[in-house]
């Protein structure tokens, strides 16, 4: 058994999982992205996958890796690489290392939390919302448009609406107000996403394998993640959610092939549960610190359990996946 973590050691979720794995005595290697210039990779792909990662401090046999936790940033954004510039060999090397490791993580039989392919739907919010709707959650009415008159009609129809990015870039939710009317003509430049505003209470649910950790978010902000910027208070506390909603979260994560997921829910004033988004690489420590929920410990156990099951032909996650699909179909 060998667990590979890849990212920046000081980054909170990665550090928390690493600490748990060490505490549990599970063989773990942390590949520090900052060592990218000293990182060498050897990869051979045919009917099976073999390879090594070598740094001045480590020699990792990829064939021995049984589970992976991915938290990499784009290596081109590392100060050393950015400074070297796009034409430098350092830049090209960083791209090659990222590409090789992400490519390997797509096909390795090891448990990967989470595979890049499974994380990708989060990059197109309406695409992911359609997946979420298909898996049994209510989603807000959504319009993506270049037509100012269509926005006006949508606004009049729903009373209050919000706008947010279509992609994962600058993904922040804001309510549309009178101050935006003059700028509505700008939507003609690029399809822009608008959603019906759902009043209610926010919840963040972390699914780790089959474990579910729910927290309630008390905030007046349109997007509580940015509440502090407007000096608005946010309170997060552990809670229980109805069992059927909990089960739907499990099914959602499973069907989306995400052993780890951060699911954003809102319970409307009428008691209807809406899902806005599934975060495939959640910064769970923000919630763990506020609630005391042992999320990093659950991730560590998932990584260890996933690796144990590999030799018997499938992880717990895969079993849950099959069950989740059966539930959806059934």
């Amino acid at each position, binding site marked *: 058994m060998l667990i590979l973590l890849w990212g920046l050691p000081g980054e909170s979720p990665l550090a928390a999982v690493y600490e748990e794995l060490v505490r549990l005595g599970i063989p773990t290697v942390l590949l520090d992205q900052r060592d990218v210039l000293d990182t060498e990779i050897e990869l*051979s792909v*045919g009917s099976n996958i073999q390879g090594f990662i070598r740094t001045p401090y480590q020699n990792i046999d990829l064939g021995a890796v049984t589970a992976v936790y991915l938290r990499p940033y784009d290596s081109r954004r590392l100060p050393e690489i950015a400074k070297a510039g796009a034409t430098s060999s350092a830049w090209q090397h960083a791209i090659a290392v990222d590409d090789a490791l992400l490519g390997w993580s797509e096909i390795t039989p090891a448990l990967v939390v989470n595979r890049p392919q499974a994380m990708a739907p989060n*990059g197109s919010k309406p695409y992911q919302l359609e997946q979420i709707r298909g898996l049994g959650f209510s989603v807000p009415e959504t319009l993506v448009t*270049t*037509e100012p008159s269509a926005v006006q009609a949508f606004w009049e129809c729903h009373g209050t609406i919000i706008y947010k990015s279509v992609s994962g870039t600058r993904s922040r939710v804001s309510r549309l107000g009178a101050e935006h009317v003059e700028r509505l003509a700008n939507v003609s430049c690029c*399809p822009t996403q608008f959603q019906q505003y759902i009043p209610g209470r926010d919840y963040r649910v972390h699914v780790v394998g089959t474990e579910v950790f729910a927290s309630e978010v008390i905030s007046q902000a349109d997007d509580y993640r940015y509440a502090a910027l407007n000096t608005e208070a946010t309170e997060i506390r552990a809670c229980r959610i109805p069992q059927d909603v909990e089960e739907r979260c499990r099914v959602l994560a499973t069907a989306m092939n995400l052993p780890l997921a951060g699911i954003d829910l809102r319970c409307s004033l009428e008691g209807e549960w809406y899902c806005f988004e599934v975060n495939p690489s959640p910064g769970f420590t923000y919630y763990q610190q506020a609630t005391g929920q042992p999320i990093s410990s659950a991730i560590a156990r998932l990584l260890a359990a996933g690796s144990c099951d590999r030799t018997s032909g499938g992880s717990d996650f895969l079993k849950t996946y099959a069950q989740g699909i059966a539930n959806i179909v059934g």
Partner: protein
Amino acid sequence: MLVVVASRYDKAAEALVGSWAGQGASLLTCEDLSVVGWRHHLTSSKDSTAVVGGQVVGVEQIVGVLTRIPCVFEQELLQIVPADRSYVAAEMNAFLISWLSRLKCPVLNRPTPTYLLGPNWRPQQWLYAAAQLGIPVHPMRRYIALSGDVCPKPPEMPPVTVTVVGDRIFGSVDQALATQARRLADAAKVDLLAVHFSGSESGADFLGADLWPDISSPNVADAILEYLSGGGGKC
């Protein structure tokens, strides 16, 4: 209406649209995404509209789509101020992924969340998928170091290409290779695929695959037209 989603610089796509003029084919470029008229309702396609070749059309009028761009390139967004091009390209790309995925008509190929042309597999992923299907492969070796990478050498002989369009297979190859190509397309869940082999005989090695087949071949173009017109197309 048939729609070809392509770069404004894609001459092959332009020629294809020209040859399909009788079928009402039109080119959809990134410029169309900066025109008033798009309405994409997520929960219903009723009242949804698109802009194709500068004209607003009802989505239900579109009977088939061929996609020829892997993503929206910011370099093509000349209508957008330079400072915003990168963000707008990401937004347009994310929008097209959703829009193309939701269409009820045949789409070659359906996009994936990372690639408008279909699954954005790296060469080693295609190779691994082929090997899992029992197709003969040569292991692909790669060595990456700051001192210099060693990448796979290109084949000494030009590869033999098999093009898959739905159930039709093009290329002068043994039937076994044609079958392998179709099986690989099934594994990738695509209906348009170019598969490269080391030779035309049974037992040839798989060399690679891509989602960018040569559409200038009249046979391939006809097969695409037939697929999009409902003959073998999957909705």
